[in-house]
């Protein structure tokens, strides 16, 4: 019998706000000392009251708009009660009754074609802390740095049918949220986390099979492995009766390549949700709504169409540039200064991106002022600075954003000289010192000229118009 898989995802995304959701502690503690980003509020001590970080609502709303959701104009926070050592107040403040965004869609494309995945809701909530288990000492340590870091949870409808679609969906979410600059979405950093709800049924059936939820996958590859494992476990259970499937939460062990039962529906806790009386309902008026709407970015495919159409770039170049909003913005700024899209694109793709690779930085980490890059490109295209020297200037700008390209070029002797007297002297000396190359060239070896040309250019520190040098060099040899 043939089976089909039905998958819905719950994706947690850490919002990239500066401070936490209900206090002013820094929300960025990746790699920081344990418990160094905490205060009585995010430690759940009695007497502190939550004050909503407006930026969190801005970002939640923006994420909702990116995913074509309806924005609830009155959105509320609720308390979810559960006891766990990493949750200091013994409740999580989340959104249960009126989440910020509902009923959206995300368009994905796989080898099977295009598909629209329905979004049930997006709600805002606070993260919990972390438990660090020390196996040697047999102790567990609690780190509250992450408590109250703002999250959104994106809940999809069960519209996905397998690992490939799940991957496409997650990649699309990443792109949309990164374009909107609301989240980093880096699974390796834990800023994006995904729970998979999965069931299997005979193909064509309209009755859903027994659903299991899987947690603890920390890469897209792990998610794909977990889905494949779980699907075969379900089919095995249905066909061979190897086990009785029950509705339960399972933990994925990526090293062993297996999932393990954590808790069944019967033993799951009752979260006892109720409206948080300490957080007043948040009313999103037209002014607020419109101000967020106005900041929505152009979608990657719209940008790409503009780059290939209006700017005349190749498909490949447009693809490369639209991989990251940071790259797009740098490119567009550079283009606005230099006025040559192809030039700007070449600089971005061959120079800027390779510098990022050398520095082991992601494209999203690009922090280069496109205006400055544009000025540098103008210096090169105007013949004022040689390309090799321009690369050196670019590398310097990466380390020190305050650099003004032209000033830096002057200060470091990178300005192209039009002093033909100097060029002629250098040519004369170089040619005199290398009679073999001269003889080779005269004997018909074109390559010998390139050797002489290179030596002259080196002597001139690259500050020379190649056409001018070439002409003086040939004239000089011919005149010998």
């Amino acid at each position, binding site marked *: 019998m043939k089976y089909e898989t039905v998958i819905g995802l719950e994706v947690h995304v850490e919002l990239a706000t500066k401070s936490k959701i209900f206090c002013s502690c820094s929300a960025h503690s990746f790699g920081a000392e344990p418990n160094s980003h905490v205060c009585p509020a995010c430690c759940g001590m009695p007497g502190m009251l939550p*004050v909503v970080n407006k930026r969190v609502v801005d970002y939640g709303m923006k994420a909702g708009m990116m995913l074509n959701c309806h924005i609830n104009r009155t959105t509320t926070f609720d308390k979810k009660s559960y006891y766990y050592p990493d949750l200091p107040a013994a409740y999580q403040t989340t959104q249960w009754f009126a989440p910020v965004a509902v009923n959206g869609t995300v368009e994905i494309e796989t080898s099977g074609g295009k598909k629209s995945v329905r979004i049930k809701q997006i709600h805002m909530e606070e993260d919990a802390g972390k438990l660090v288990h020390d196996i040697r000492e047999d102790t567990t340590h609690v780190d509250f740095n992450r408590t109250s870091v703002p999250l959104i949870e994106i809940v999809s409808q069960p519209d996905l049918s397998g690992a490939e679609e799940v991957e496409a969906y997650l990649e699309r979410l990443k792109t949309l949220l990164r374009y909107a600059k609301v989240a980093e979405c880096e699974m390796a950093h834990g800023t994006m986390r995904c729970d998979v709800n999965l069931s299997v049924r005979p193909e064509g059936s309209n009755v859903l099979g027994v659903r299991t939820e899987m947690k603890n996958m920390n890469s897209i590859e792990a998610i794909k492995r977990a889905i494949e494992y779980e699907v075969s476990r379900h089919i095995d259970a249905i066909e061979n009766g190897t086990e009785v499937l029950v509705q339960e939460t399972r933990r994925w062990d990526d090293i062993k390549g297996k999932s393990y039962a954590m808790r069944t529906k019967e033993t799951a806790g009752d979260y006892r949700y109720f409206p948080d009386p300490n957080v007043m309902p948040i009313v999103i008026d037209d002014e607020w709504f419109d101000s967020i709407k106005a900041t929505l970015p152009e979608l990657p495919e719209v940008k790409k169409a503009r780059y290939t159409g209006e700017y005349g770039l190749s498909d490949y170049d447009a693809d490369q540039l639209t991989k990251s909003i940071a790259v797009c913005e740098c490119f567009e700024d550079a283009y606005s200064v230099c006025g040559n899209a192809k030039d700007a694109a070449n600089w971005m793709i061959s120079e800027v991106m390779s510098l990022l690779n050398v520095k082991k930085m992601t494209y999203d980490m690009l922090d280069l002022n496109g205006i400055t890059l544009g000025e540098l490109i103008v210096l090169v295209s105007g013949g004022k600075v040689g390309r090799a020297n321009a690369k050196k200037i670019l590398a310097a700008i990466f380390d020190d954003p305050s650099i003004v390209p032209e000033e830096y070029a002057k200060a470091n002797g990178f300005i192209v000289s039009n002093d033909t007297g100097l060029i002629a002297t250098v040519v004369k000396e170089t040619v005199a010192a290398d009679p073999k190359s001269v003889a080779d060239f005269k004997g018909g070896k074109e390559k010998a000229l390139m050797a002489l040309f290179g030596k002259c250019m080196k002597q001139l520190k690259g500050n020379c118009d190649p056409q001018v040098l070439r002409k003086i060099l040939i004239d000089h040899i011919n005149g010998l």
Partner: protein
Amino acid sequence: MKKIIVDDMLLTKDLPTTAGSKMLEGYMSLFEAEAISRLNGAGYTISGKAEVGEFAIDLICETNYKGAFVKKGKLASPVAEMLEGDAEAAVCMDVNGSVRRAAAQNSLVSIKPTYGTVSRFGTVPVACSGETVSVMAKSADNCEAVLSIIAGHDDKDGTSLSDEDCAKAKEVSPMRRIAVLGNMLKDTDLAVARKIEIFRENLAAKGIEVCEINSDVIAASSAAWNVLMCAELCNNVSRYDGVKYGYRAENFSGIDELYTNSRTEAFGELLKCAILFGSDTLSTENYMKVYDKSLRVRRVVSEAFNALFEQYDAVMMPACSSFDYSEDIEDTAVFEENYYTAPASITGLPAVVIDGVQLVGKAFSEGSLLAFAKEYEKEAK
């Protein structure tokens, strides 16, 4: 230096705050209540902290872990006792009406302001949707002086109202017509009934019209308030586990037993009742039937009050069934005794207690309630 008493629900930096619970015995807060900061800024010093019943949900102070506060075979109020000294007033948390009951029983004046006009920052959270920082004193003048210092917007409390709204609470308009809630006159003892009778006569003598009305909706406040209060309480006290701070059991093996033993030993019986009841009202099975229904009762009680305020300037009712609680009264009697205090708690409306009687006014009418109380005091003398 003017002296002020605060009750043990307000966090202080240099004195322990226990909220009347063994769970927080010796607990030193890292920060203090906003009300205390404002009083310090206005030149007041704290002359003492008054004991409260555990998390202040009790009658007046009978379920504190140190035992009941009893004088001459009767339950007594530690705050009222301390006010016999030279402090100007006491700032207390009105969680479940204990402040108003204590004021009524000790011929003191108390004012519970409109919810949101005094910051709850730095108060031990119990029933956040209705509890209010309140003031108790020997005179309405003193209540007014202290309230005017602690009231006002505070960015640290998300439910704190704007300064503009808080200013409305200072406006004064005269009392012309007062409604007496007939439902609540039936089950009081003779002394309370007599007090109400005298009060009515005094009002009539002042030319204030008094009409007896009945409202089954307002009378239903207590049942709904017990649900909301206990549910929120259960949620708020879940944080006390004996690990990070507070009481920890001496004997335990393993983390689960540490939690269980610490809570079993440190929480009192009334609190345990409230926790179990509150937890149950929030269960998936009961949420709509019980908790959500109580939220709806809260709304209709507010509407019933608002309808009355179209015709009346205040609604008069007792603050307690008796001026004397014998020392062997059941702890759980508070869930019935708050019949008199729950209407103002559940709606967040302001209430003044003077001469053993409670007047509930419309939102932001505490200025008018206190002006009335001052005039009443003057004439009584």
